[in-house]
């Protein structure tokens, strides 16, 4: 493309044409760039899921009617399977607050009570989290960073409370 630039300076009759062409190229490039940005923004808009801790959900900071992720520990003794099918109910806790989660399907290998979990889904009108996806991590010792952060936050908040009292 720089070849054309050189031509602009040396051969004047071609120069106008070349400048014209260059202008077209710039327009084309900008249009392409705009299309990509539109594509990316559109894709982001529909597939970004925010992450909330149980405390945030209980304090009503999480959206209603929009999918998000919730993370924490599966509360010990809270996993209940319904009689007939594959529906599971369990509580996710960040040690400060607890949110009930319902999920139908097969849970990942590493899903266990007292272990970290991330669930994706929506809150229903009763405040129960209807999960469409449950993720547990591949390492039994591993806590997802979001889960860790949620737990730490809850802990800090509680520590602050006890100090105030």
């Amino acid at each position: 493309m720089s070849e054309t630039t050189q031509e602009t300076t040396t051969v004047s009759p071609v120069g106008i044409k070349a400048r014209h062409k260059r202008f077209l190229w710039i327009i084309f490039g900008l249009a392409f760039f705009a299309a990509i940005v539109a594509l990316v923004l559109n894709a982001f808009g529909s597939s970004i899921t925010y992450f909330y801790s149980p405390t945030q959900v209980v304090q009503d900071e999480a959206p209603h009617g929009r999918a998000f992720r919730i993370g924490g520990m599966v509360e010990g003794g809270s996993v209940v399977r319904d009689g007939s099918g594959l529906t599971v109910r369990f509580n996710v806790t960040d040690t400060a607050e607890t949110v009930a989660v319902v999920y139908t399907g097969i849970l990942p290998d590493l899903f266990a009570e007292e272990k970290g979990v991330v669930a994706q889904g929506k809150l229903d009108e009763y405040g129960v989290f209807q999960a469409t996806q449950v993720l547990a991590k591949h390492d039994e010792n591993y806590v997802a960073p979001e889960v860790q952060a949620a737990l730490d936050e809850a802990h800090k908040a509680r520590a602050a409370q006890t100090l105030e009292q």
Partner: protein
Amino acid sequence: MIPEIGQFALVLALLLVMVQGTLPLIGASKGISAWMALSRRTAQGAFFFLSLALGCLIYSFIVNDFSVLNVANNSNTKLPVIYRIAASWGSHEGSIMMWVFMLGMWSCAVSIFSKHLPEEMVARVLGVMGCVSMGLLLFLLLTSNPFDRLFPVPLEGRDLNPLLQDPGMILHPPMLYMGYVGFSVAFAFAVAALLGGRLDATWARWSRPWTTLAWCFLTIGILIGSWWAYYELGWGGWWFWDPVENASLMPWLVGTALMHSLAVTEKRGTFKVWTVLLAICTFSLSLLGTFLVRSGILTSVHAFAVDPQRGMFILALLALVIGGSLALFAFRAPKVGTGGTFKIISRESALLANNVLLAVACGTVLLGTLYPLFLDALKLGKISVGPPYFEAVFVPLMAPLVFLMGVGAVARWKEATLPDLWARLRWAAAITLVAAVALPFILGRTSPTSVALLALGFAMAFWIITASLAGLFDRVKYVEGSFREKLARQPRSFWGMFAAHIGVAVFIIGVTVVKGFEIERDVRMTPGDTVAISNYTFRFESMGERTGPNFHASRGTFELSKNGKPVRKLYPEKRMYFAHGMPMTEAAIDSGIFGDRYVSLGEPINDGKDSWSVRVYHKPFVTWIWYGCILMTLGGLLAISDRRYRVSARRETAKPSLPPLEPAKLEKA
């Protein structure tokens, strides 16, 4: 004793690459040929010591030397020998060791197969590779020593992560690393060209086979990884857009662009600056991939040991290698000069457009992968970017890419005309159109979205196949002889391109059909129950137990029948590994040319009747995804074996300073 030898070998290798990374480079700029001559010997010596070190590490794993920390943490006496060997590169330390070893291997290969290159070029290329080796060896020795001792010696090791105890995992990392590291050769050639100011068609011819070979390894590595995730994770998916997967996809995309851009630079002498930038970016993305995976900076299903100190070290290394080479690029690229011109409608512009599309695709993947990190760093909340983002961005970028793939393969260099292109491609276009419209209906789909998606997929696949055939027809039209002779006269590089492009089509068919027709069902089954999907029936016969070398498994027996006739038994397992206490799903797959039937066990349901939650799949044509990748790799290998490289190698020894080909300028003059 053996680990000490390994450690010592690493130190010796470091000393050698220190020489390799400095003296030849200085020698090349000052014209001291004795210093330049050091490059080959040091590279070979370093490779010898790196092999010795790797050998010592593997030996320590085989003999269960738990006095080595790395062995104690990643192996176990009950682990089968083959996995003990694989465990040598299963850990963080081991994988970096593997990385360095392979870098040594590629350097050594360059030192052997570079007889026809000017001494100065060899010195620079090996010098650059030496610098990279130096950085990684320092990283290995200072922060991730694979031979660190442990005292007192434990009686038993912690065992290898059960997920990695799988044939796919034995091969996946070495192949992937061969690819990642292989791009260092293209990178070194590019940096050497910037340093020396020599960047012409011969330069491109030298770098091409190396780049293609690395690309082949990377393709196979990604393929094995995807296949492994498919059958080992028990979710039936073959690509999850997980950060670790994306880390390997990005260099592949840019590497693909680089391969094609090099072809143009070799044949037409154009795109030089762009080619150099792609070469730098491809290797940079390989390094970045290693960084992202090893630093634990991103949340991923692949949870590796997280150590910020290591992360800092790799980041510093990245800054030096990538920052340094990009700075060099910014200052030296204007001196490289440009090549011949071409018109908007020409093979060059089709290839350039595809290059841009591939680079943009890589950019969007990078953005999606790092976006959560950006937001988190700016304290804007914790988010995750899901597969829908990647699919929504990737498919619209791939559609024009595939269209141009067909056009580029038949368009003439320099200048093509639309009527001429139309004449060559009209049959291809007609067949594509008919197939895309008819096939979804023939296959019994009526809902608008699924018809549209299927039509798009089939259109892309058929377009590639028919346009490639049109290209083949064009080439043989004027060749004398029988049809067989006509085909035999085509150079291997053409067949390489042909095979690789058909591979892309096969891949697209696989993806399209799986997306459109896969059936997944999660059911609760008690022995005796059946579940039917399409014309297959799975009958849950019984539940049993099995004890493996280092695990205990609950094993289900399923009978698969097609149209009522028994096909075979399937034995999915739920394993519990002794050392990790970690449950692992082992899916059972009935695999065929036209797809897979897949059963995996969920979890037992305590109702006293041996009930389990079970996941069954019918995945038509999923195997075509892997076949496509294999074809692409074969295509790459065919292209490398083209005799042109050997012939030109001989010619260049006689005439070392061939001027760059610039036919466009000549014609103008």
